[in-house]
């Protein structure tokens, strides 16, 4: 019953809105008649305003000189800005006072002649059409002009292809089986240097550090925390995991690591990108836990060499960086 009453009320309200909507579309009344004529002209500057304008303009010039002096002595940014800014403030005030209290004040009415000249439309169109007058092979010439345009356009746009290589190398990374992990200073990263909860950035040995596929994040978790799929069981010796540092969302560096200090209250370990806060779970092979990233962080299989340094046990698990049409292939 109450539901029915509410429904009726809603229908009534909706109809009221509809009625109101019709009213709201009604045209506005015509503008008021041109009475009184707003035209006015007042001449005669106020003497105090004239003196004020002169004083302001002189002060403006002095501030300009002050700018030159500051430039020649200290070139202090704040003083330069204050001098130039003050000069402009004084100029602005002088011009405003002059505009409102010195020069003749006038409210004028300018006619606004109609823009259009409808009588000229058809003659103009006729003249344009006249191009085909007495021409019998209009279709042929138009088609030929189309061929010329298309050919020239293709020729004009082709050099743009030299701008860059083809998209083949996108998502590639320099990691191979046995590539050593180097730290920020170029020294081999040792497994023993990473305690549980550690977070480090490493680069592929022998690769340009500015190459997108080079940087990886290396984290160490407790071994019982790590839940990798069966095929990746061996990728995390002693709970040490490595993932591409380039976010799979938009290519920023995944430079935040959340690691719980208190298991009761903190959230689970996560790798977070500071650009759009894509959050990846390092325990579960870099799965997306929150945020906009569309696929997991590519994982780098690790091994510990005989001398205790970390090396790649194989290539990246997938293409690195943001997604593109062809990212699904590999």
């Amino acid at each position, binding site marked *: 019953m109450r539901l029915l009453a509410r429904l009726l009320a809603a229908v009534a309200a909706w109809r009221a809105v509809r009625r109101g*909507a019709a*009213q*709201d*579309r009604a*045209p*506005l*009344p015509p*503008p008021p008649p*041109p009475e009184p004529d*707003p035209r006015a002209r007042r001449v005669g500057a106020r003497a105090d305003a004239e003196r004020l304008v002169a004083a302001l303009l002189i002060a403006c010039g002095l501030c300009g000189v002050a700018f030159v002096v500051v*430039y020649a002595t200290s070139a202090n*940014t704040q003083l*330069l800005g204050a001098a*130039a*800014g003050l000069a*402009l*403030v004084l100029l602005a005030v002088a*011009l405003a006072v*002059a*505009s409102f209290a010195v*020069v*003749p004040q*006038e409210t*004028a*009415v*300018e006619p*606004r*002649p109609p*823009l259009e000249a409808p009588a000229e439309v058809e003659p103009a169109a006729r003249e344009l059409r006249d191009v085909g007058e007495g021409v019998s092979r209009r279709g042929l010439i138009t088609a030929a002009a189309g061929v010329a345009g298309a050919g020239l356009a293709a020729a004009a746009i082709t050099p743009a*292809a030299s*701008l860059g*290589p083809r*998209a083949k*190398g996108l*998502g590639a990374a320099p990691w191979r089986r046995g590539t050593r992990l180097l730290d920020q200073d170029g020294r081999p990263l040792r497994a023993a240097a990473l305690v549980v909860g550690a977070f480090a950035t490493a680069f592929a040995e022998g690769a340009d*550090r*500015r190459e*997108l*596929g*080079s940087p990886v994040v290396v984290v160490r978790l407790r071994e019982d925390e790590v839940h990798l799929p069966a095929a990746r069981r061996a990728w995390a010796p002693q709970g040490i995991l490595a993932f591409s540092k380039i976010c799979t*969302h938009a290519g*920023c*560096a*995944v*430079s935040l690591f959340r690691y719980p200090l208190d298991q009761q209250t903190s959230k689970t370990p996560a790798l977070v990108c500071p*650009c759009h*806060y894509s959050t990846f779970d390092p325990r579960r092979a870099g799965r997306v836990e*929150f*945020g*906009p*990233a*569309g*696929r997991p962080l590519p994982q780098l299989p690790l091994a510990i060499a005989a001398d205790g340094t970390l090396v790649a046990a194989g290539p990246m698990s997938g293409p690195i*960086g*943001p*997604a*593109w*049409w062809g*990212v*699904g292939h590999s």
Partner: protein
Amino acid sequence: MSDAARDPVAEPIRFVDERLGAAKLIRGALDYVFPDHWSFLLGELALYAFVILVATGTYLALFFEPSTTQLVYHGAYGPLHGVQMSGAYASALDISYGVPAGLLLRQTHHWAALLFIAAIVVHLMRVFFTGAFRKPRELNYVVGVAMLAIGVLEGFLGYSLVDDLLSGMGLAIAYGVVLSIPLVGGQVGALLWGGQYPGSVAFEPRLFIAHVFLVPAILATLIAVHLAMIVRQHHTQFRGPGRQEHNVVGTPMWPAYALRSLSWFATTAAVLVLLGGLVQINPIWQWGPYEVAQGTNGAQPDWYLGWLIGALRIMPAWEPRFWGHTWAGNPFFGGVVFPTVVFAVLFAWPWLEQRFITRDFATHHLLDRPRDNPWRTAIGAAFFSWVFTVFFAGAADRILVSVGIPYETQVWLARGAFFVAPVIVGVAAYRIASELRRSDLHPLRGAVARRVVRRPDGSFATVADEVEPGAG
């Protein structure tokens, strides 16, 4: 020779007139009438900010070195001595610390860019809510919206040039957005950057030539077209005494308006130079040089990209992938689809309104107030609040730091507000506008008032009387 020939004012006019026939043109320009209303200054503000941008930008370009070639820094800024960085970043540091007045002009340039786009946005809203875009001004409206889009791009190119950590993060995101475009994204990205991000050494000079030549030339051309169309059509004006569709009432260009406008220019320049000198902006020496392996928390772009970072952040993790292809990378939705929808609505609005709301095909030179067309006001308020919701979502990490609302909660709230906020704002705006409109059309309808009348003999009497509609 007569006195008139030696007149220092008349003589140059005569000189030009006898050669180009310009006296009539000059007189027309001097008599050109500007309506008196503060909201007409918003467009001028954008124009003057552009002038400041060109002036300061030209100066900066004389010192800036658009190169990503790596070097070890030993320039004017001591704390970064010995750090490896690009030539671009090193020269931006030297502009800030080594070139006298360099920092003043760099900061003024940055502030002017922020103001330029802010002024365009507010100007656009003024034009929108007053119906100034209606026939015959649709073309000029379209040019204006195009300048907004190009201005946002130009600003992004500018702060990307510097190659500090923040600009590199911004470019990485731009690369991610380009790559996410269906089918061609990978190819376009490889073309623009000359390979996988951060790309070849050719990329930085490309960015530079786009920022200092291509895009400013397009903007300057569009500004010229915008102004030429205004001069041809004359300004719109609000309703008022003597103001008709076929006239313009206001202050003539010469002398009062010219002085007023120059004063406004000096005001704009003063505020920007004072900001540039006294209020720090984008202290690149604190961010450090960009490395692909580095990022910083709490990074925020310039304000006018906030709506795009917000869209990228609230888009859920959805990346349609089937038949062996990623059909659209996730950044496509926030970085391409959302801004495309926003600008498509803006571009199409004059025709959408004409077709679906007003059915009004007439020419209008008199402006509406927001209340005069409640449907336009409601849809406009809903639309802008929709964009602002996304804008605020882009600041969720800052809100987390200052207010403490968990980030994830804010993202979910923003996802809800994305759908709910425009409806609430639209309905509220509609109600307010239509109530105001009705009370305007029928002031004090049905109200009964008492009049006190003084009789000829000096005594008073009260008379009950119904106030006539329109008399109030």
